């Protein structure tokens, strides 16, 4: 028997579509890990974060994008997510350093990312997102976690009219449908 090879599947198989001028696309990433800050280790973790990713550790609901395009955001007092779209040495170089300070959990298969982008994106999000999307409250680079259409969603604002939405992978089909309906309904 030939050697078995396991093929990776992305939750939405690389979906892209434009509805009402809103570009909806699966946000593909190579890996996604969570970092937990051990008790009483804020300082150590801050130093480590700066060292391993080259940017200061963000405050809660804030994010960084480092020079390799790695997105890091802080979703709780002691919890961060690091999303690596394509940096090839991430697993070999960055993660081992992070491990020296943080508790790390692989979340790559757990989340599905969707980018929504376009002039009417706020109108669309108004239909599912309970958060205040005004730039005064939800600035570029902010990231928040909330519930949309019965699903837990992490929403990251990349530009004024471009967001990345992360939702659990098992319900990614329902979430995509939700975004499609919202885009169609405006």
């Amino acid at each position, binding site marked *: 028997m030939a*050697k078995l090879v*396991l093929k990776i599947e992305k939750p939405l198989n690389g979906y892209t579509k434009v509805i009402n001028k809103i570009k909806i696309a699966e946000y593909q990433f190579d890996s996604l890990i969570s970092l937990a800050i051990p008790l009483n280790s804020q300082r150590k973790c801050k130093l480590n974060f700066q060292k391993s990713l080259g940017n200061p550790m963000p405050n809660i609901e804030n994010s960084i994008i480092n020079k390799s395009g790695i997105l890091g955001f802080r979703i709780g007092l002691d919890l961060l997510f690091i999303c690596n779209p394509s940096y090839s040495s991430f697993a070999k170089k960055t993660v081992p350093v992070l491990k020296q300070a943080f*508790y790390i959990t692989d979340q790559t298969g*757990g989340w599905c990312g969707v980018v929504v982008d376009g002039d009417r994106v706020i109108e669309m999000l108004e239909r599912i997102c309970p958060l205040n999307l005004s730039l005064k409250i939800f600035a570029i680079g902010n990231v928040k976690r909330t519930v949309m259409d019965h699903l837990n969603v992490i929403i990251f604002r990349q530009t004024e009219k471009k967001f990345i939405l992360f939702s659990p*992978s*098992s319900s990614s089909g329902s979430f995509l449908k939700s975004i499609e309906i919202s885009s169609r309904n405006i």
Partner: protein
Amino acid sequence: MRNSSHPITNKQKLSFTFNGKKYFGYKGDTLASALIANNVKIVGRSFKYHRPRGIFSAGSEEPNALVELGDGPYKEPNTKATNIELFDGLKGSSQNFLGSVNFDLMAINDLLKNFIGAGFYYKTFMWPRRFWEKLYEPIIRRAAGLGKLSLKADPSHYDKGYLHCDFLIIGSGISGLMSALLLAETGSEVLIVEEDFILGGRLNSERLGINGKQSSIWIGQAVKKLKSLNNVRILNRTTVFAAFDHGIFAAIEKKTDHILEKSSKPRQINWKIYTKYCILASGAIERSIAFPQNDRPGIMLAGSVRTYANRFGAHYGQKIAIYTNNDDGWKTADDLKNMGLEIKAVIDTRKEIEAPSSSISSYLGQTITKTYGRKGIKAIKLSSGSKLNVDCLAVSGGWSSNIHLTCHKRGKPVWDNIYKNFLSVDNAQKDKIIPVGAARGIFEIQNIISDTNRVILSLIKKIGLSMPNRITLTSSKEQYSCSLDLVSSSNPSNSFIDLQNDVTQKDIELSFREGFKSVEHLKRYSTLGMATDQGKTSNILGLASMAKLKGTNISEVGTTIFRPPYVPVAISAFAGRSKGKDFRPTRLPPSHNVAFKRNAVFVETGNWLRAQWFPEEGETFWRQSVDREVLQTRNSVGICDVTTLGKIDIQGKDCLEFLNFVYTNAFAKLPINRVRYGLMLREDGVAYDDGTTARLGENHFIMTTTTANAALVFRNLEFVRQCLLPNLDVHLISTTDSWAQYSVAGPNSRRLLQKIVDKPKDITNANFPFMACRELTICGGVMARLFRISFSGELAYEIAVPTQYGNALFDALLSAGKEFKAVPYGTEALGVMRIEKGHAAGNEINGHTTAQNLGLSRMISKKADSIGNMLSEREGFNGSNIATMSGFQPVQRSEKLEAGSHLISAGKTPTMENDEGWLSSVAFSPTLGHYIGLGFIERGKTRIGEKVLAVNLLQNKTTEVEIVSPHFVDPEGIKQRG
């Protein structure tokens, strides 16, 4: 009739049908205005007496003109003609009649009025007892109710949305627009919400000018300015219908109700609005006067007659009389006269006033004692005895501030004796709902202008925003005063207080006579104010009537409060898009695609959709598939997706202490690369959840929970971590979705897995015994986790890979398993095998049962504190008589068992006194060839071998069963250790 010189006649002509007859109207009409223009007087029948009724008002306070709109599944009963924006092709019809709306057979009720007044049904229909459901009630039910539902699923789409602002302004009349202009200048986010399809509110109904020009010019300028600002948003066709805590309001936007074509776009949007302040510019609602036969078609609110005339150029007939107790009635007379209509008379109940207009014949200090014309008013009789022929009677009982929303948080309105009106006073400020204009009890235009400036500017000052300039507007000088002549003294049985519920003054008197004097009793007994209009035009009449009977005033009588919603809202609009298959999200396990391709039958498990069984060709009955899956697993190997079990990644230096506390059994000595079964109790000592926890490293653990309790267990662990033991270094994150986890079970499971893992030697029995776990790689380097745990009792493993490899691994296992004839198995076979093995699941750990019931009391460690430990020691948990989990099999092996049967001793009668337990789970065991069951029976452990009865009265079946060990298969656990 239509005034042919009115500008509306220049608009697009629209055709519509009402009760099957074709009519024409114009764009800008409502159905009501178009019906008036076409002189249609009878629009519906009243609720109880089936009296002919016409259009009464011009807004959402309408009590009479309820129609069924549309047809087929689009049919919408109880729709107010006054709120329906006319469109080409509209179809409307009357409702609540037998025969036709003009000749309603149910109108017989009108003749029986003396016998079927308030509360008559409480006093009769009691004999014989059985006749209630069979005879009396069906008649009452058929007679009651208003419109009909189509009984078809609502085909329209609905949506929800969320809006955030600093100021929500409800209403776009003069005070709403002024507020918006002022507040917009502060740079705040302003949201204006208008119920009507045009902006301008009451100004559209009036002739008065602003700044010396038609008011529409000022409205146009104001709206243009507001629309140019990017901090202002305007929603028309939108009604704010409810106020909730902390500045949250709900509003319904009608998106496509005024369009014939049904699109894929949502029909309505239910907006949830978050605001810091709400400016309530909702205006006022005119009330009626109760006098004999005051409900005839053609009798309308005076302000509404004015609206129809001024805004729509529509009116009934040529001879109009006005009946008023306040100055505003005279305004209607003026406007109609200006339109060229004949004003027969103004009858003012007030004697002491000076008639404002000498050119109109007036009767001061008089009342109407009778009206004529069953199907449309023909004449009125005055207290002086004079009779006047009229074809429309405009009635004004004064104006009530529209403070509905200020009551939603149980704010109590306060009576203002000057303007004879209930106002929202104290609560408004605290709730940050600030009424302006007529909603604040200011009824004269010049005062509305100055007061709105004052209220809004002082609010802006109080908040500390930048001060705008006050708005200078000039208009006519108005005068408004009002009397409380609201109820007549003659013929109370025909003087209608609440038009929609057919509550007459006589009913109020009867309520009073029978002791229903408190306003709440009055409402409940007489049904006053309980119709679809919530008594917007009638409540004050009822209160005035009760005050008169009690010999007191309205403020003493008090008032009931309005309940949300302000206007009735479609149930679908609250559901939004959560309907049909989209009621809840669907979660798919990682092998879903493979299972789908293999024609699996799926089952809903919470939000998950899991493969229930995998039918093969030729299998026509589910048991064939399930039996095969069980036997093939037990004989060789089977594979099942168990990803849905909750998985929680636990890391930290203090995990062992934490686990020791959340589980009843000891975890303190769990070695690395080992798994342990754990039982969780609730703090009240009842069994809560069970699962395994694996130790992958010094500070790294993986906990599994049941599928059903995954979120709950996580929540409770966070509670322990943050609220009970916050000084421990423990971190939790759910990885349920991150890992695809498959059970590989059966005697060939190891051989199969050895073909997959990169180092087959690692998983020999010696290197990887029962309850071992480890991280390893499979298929040439894919990271994986392997756990040697068994739910089926077989030699079994659970293998986990990152979810993105889910379908691939399931396929790989099946293809590697071909030589063993490996089968995929679903939740049914999983359930059968766990029953055969005697493992408790959701039917056993059901929130009632304890560790003692489950036969797991030895798992409660007495050496350490743990959740539920203390309270599980209470006597009720520990008697010698408690039910314990046992196995059951039919004495006649061919007999079927039913879960939910109760267990009683042989020879006893099936009563609750004799109840000893129940069968919780049953299955046909293909391994044993007969039905088996798990259940709970008193002292079960000591009764092995005893024969008892499984009683299923519900299906009329009693089966003799034998109590056996719950472990039907391999009770010693040799297989799983092999």
